[in-house]
Structures are given as structure tokens and as C-alpha cells.
């Protein structure tokens, strides 16, 4: 796929953002009107340590093109130690993803503080551009489940 990126491909990237730092950093990017491509979707968690690697695997199964797990810098965790566990878990999972053949550019963990609006902008922009270049994810996908159940009106 890497040599054969789909033209006009618009990837979808999921960002797990901790409530106290990265979510606030993304808010700051907003209040500062720092522009970045609209391919990211932020999912708010209390702490990066709430992010179960199985959530990340699930997203790739369901066809996401990239996942970013982001939290407070080590030492700044709102819960004191949460991100130290995040760091251990995702140092391992990052390597396991690579081992499974998922392009390492599709999965990142980053520390982005509430003051780092510009860093949020930069990290997601770079990631979007990288994933755009390598094209849609076809690894780990469970195509059978990417279909959608359209629903009749509920009323």
C-alpha cells in the first residue's frame, strides 16, 4: 500500500486525549484558532492510562487509518502516576503493532500538555500527512464489520 497511496485519500484518525492535558491542549489550539486538517476525531478519556490497548486494536479492526494516544507529560499526570503506566503499556504495544505489520506511522503515543496547543496542531498535522501518504489501512481490518446498520426512523 505504501507505494500505492490512494489519490485524494482522506484518512480518519482517532485521538484518545486525556481530559486534563491533551484535551485541554486541543481546546487551546481551538481558542488560538490554530488550523489543522479535519481528519482527526478526539475521544475524551479521564487519563491516558484509561486507554486499553484493546481499544486501539478495535479501532484498527474497524478500519481506522491511524490512532494517537495522548496524555500529560510524565510527572504532570493529574492522577500522579497514570501516564507512567501508559508509557510502559504503549512502549510495548507500539513495538507489537510494528511486529504485526501495522505501519508504525499509523500509531503514536505523545505527551501534549494543556499549554501545548501548537504541539497538538503540529502532532496531528504531521500524523495526518504521514497517513495520507501511506494510504488507507488494510491491516488488521475486519471488513465484515465495517458495514453499517442503517436505522429506520426511531419516532
Amino acid at each position: 500500500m505504501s507505494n500505492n497511496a490512494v489519490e485524494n485519500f482522506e484518512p480518519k484518525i482517532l485521538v484518545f486525549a486525556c481530559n486534563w492535558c491533551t484535551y485541554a491542549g486541543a481546546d487551546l489550539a481551538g481558542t488560538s484558532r490554530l488550523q489543522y486538517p479535519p481528519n482527526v476525531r478526539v475521544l475524551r478519556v479521564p487519563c491516558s492510562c484509561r486507554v486499553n490497548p484493546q481499544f486501539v486494536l478495535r479501532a484498527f479492526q474497524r478500519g481506522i487509518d491511524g490512532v494517537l494516544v495522548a496524555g500529560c507529560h510524565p510527572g504532570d499526570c493529574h492522577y500522579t502516576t497514570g501516564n507512567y503506566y501508559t508509557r510502559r503499556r504503549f512502549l510495548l504495544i507500539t513495538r507489537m503493532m510494528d511486529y504485526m505489520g501495522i505501519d508504525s506511522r499509523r500509531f503514536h503515543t505523545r505527551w501534549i500538555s494543556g499549554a501545548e496547543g501548537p504541539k497538538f496542531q503540529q502532532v496531528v498535522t504531521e500524523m495526518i500527512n504521514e497517513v495520507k501518504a501511506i494510504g488507507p489501512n488494510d491491516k488488521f481490518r475486519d471488513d465484515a464489520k465495517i458495514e453499517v446498520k442503517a436505522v429506520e426512523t426511531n419516532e
Partner: protein
Amino acid sequence: MSNIQNEMRAVAKELLESGKATVVLGWEKGTMPYDSTPVMIRSAADVDKLIWDEYCLQNLSTYLIDFINTEDKVAIFAKGCDTRAYNRLVHDRRINPKNSIVIGVPCSGMKNPKVAAKTPEGAEVPMANACKECRYPNPVACDQKIGSDVTPWCTAKDFSDVEAIEAMDADAKAAFWKEQYSKCIRCYACRNICPACNCTNCIFDQSASGWCSKDVNASENQFYGVTRAFHVAGRCIECGQCEAVCPSDIPIMLMNKKFIKDIDTLFGNYEAGLVTEGTTPLNSYQVADPEEFM
């Protein structure tokens, strides 16, 4: 071998007759020459069923889980890896060390009955994969020991097979694992035999929880494979039973060893199953752990 077998029978007899144990778990000979299956002995009259040969691969520690709430006093025979499994289970509070007696047995490496069944008659059956890399052939902890210690044939962990996968490009890796996990029939034999996979309720038995699906396809199977490897990361005692029992011959230890290798490199060498308390690599941390996420 036969000396150990005689000792086993003698020890079992003594334990049962004296009442120190009400049950002895060992191995007995099955129907095929390569079947050495677990046996539960309650009477001293039955101790001659006990055998010790190169097919006593199966770890008996996990059976102790079933005895946690019984009045039984259970004696088990345990090879080096089995004692690490025993420690793992005590650490996870899944077995009661107070009602068990571990009789350590030095082991010179076992053979995999699954491989033996496929080996043409007359040909030499090789040592089981995990046994080839074994660093703990002697019991790491036990209440009593029979036989005399053997010299370990491996001193360092061998990650050459993991490194071979790491050296592949992304597409080759993905293709390799997709092929492997396409074979998975989700029989969960790997989980059921694993001393570290000892939850009373595995998430893969909770299909209503939304965690997993019962679908058997490469993606779901890989989700299962990675998740299981992550669940035993920092806890796997490298017995290789998961791989040994896999009916589809998926190289499961390649997943487990990947985590072991990375844990050793990132957080310092760690040997699972040597102690029964304290933290493991994934429920602890160091402030000075490697930093790659700035």
C-alpha cells in the same frame, strides 16, 4: 528416568499413606507411546500408575486451581517450568499454597506429543520448542525434591526467532501473521493450558461485553492473539504449552517472546514466575523508564 519414576512412586506412597496429601497429581501412560497424561491419585495402591518419561510435558500446576476451595491436600510433581507456573498461580492468588505440596523434578527437556504423532515411526522426535530454550530445567522453588539437578543447557534467552520476524518489512510481517491467525479455530486451548491465563472469567468468554466477537476470521483471531499476549506480558513463564497444544500450529510463543524481549530491553531483564509477590513489569513503572513519546 526410571530412578526418578521409582522415587516418584515412593514419595507419592509415603504422602498418601501418612495423610500428608490426600491427592497426588502426576502423569500416567496413555494409549499411545507419546501420551503421558495427567493422573490424579487418591490411593496409595494406585501409585504405580505414576510414570516419568520424556512426554511428561503437561504442566500440572494449573489443576491446583480446581482444588482451591476443597479440603484436599494436593501434592504435585513439578518440572522447572511447572514451578514457575506454580509461582505465577500463587502470585495471582488462584491456588492455595497452604493446601499444596510441590515435589520438584529436574527435567532434561520434554517432547511434544503433537509433534511425535506426526513424526514417522523410527525417526527421532525432537525436543519441544520451549524446552530447547529452557533456562530453568530445575525447580525454582518446591517443598521437596527428587532426582538430582541437571545442568541448564541454555543460559540466555534466545530471541533469534523474534528477531527474524522483526527484520521483515511491514507487509511481510502482516502477511505472516495473517496467515498464521487465519488458521486459528478459536478453540482457546492455548488459553486453557496457560498458567498465566487464569482468570475465572476470560474476556473472550464475555461476548456480550462488546470486547470481542465470536467470529472466526483473521482480524478477530489476531485481536485475540495480541490481546492474550498482552494479558500475559510480564507474566508469561515461557513454558510454551500454548504453542505445544495449538492444533493449528500457530507460533504463539513468537508473540509472547516479543513482549518478553521488549520488556527486558525497555524495563530491565525480568524473569516471571520466580517470586510469588510484588509487582510485575506492567503493574509497576520507573520514573526513569525510556521516553519516546515527547
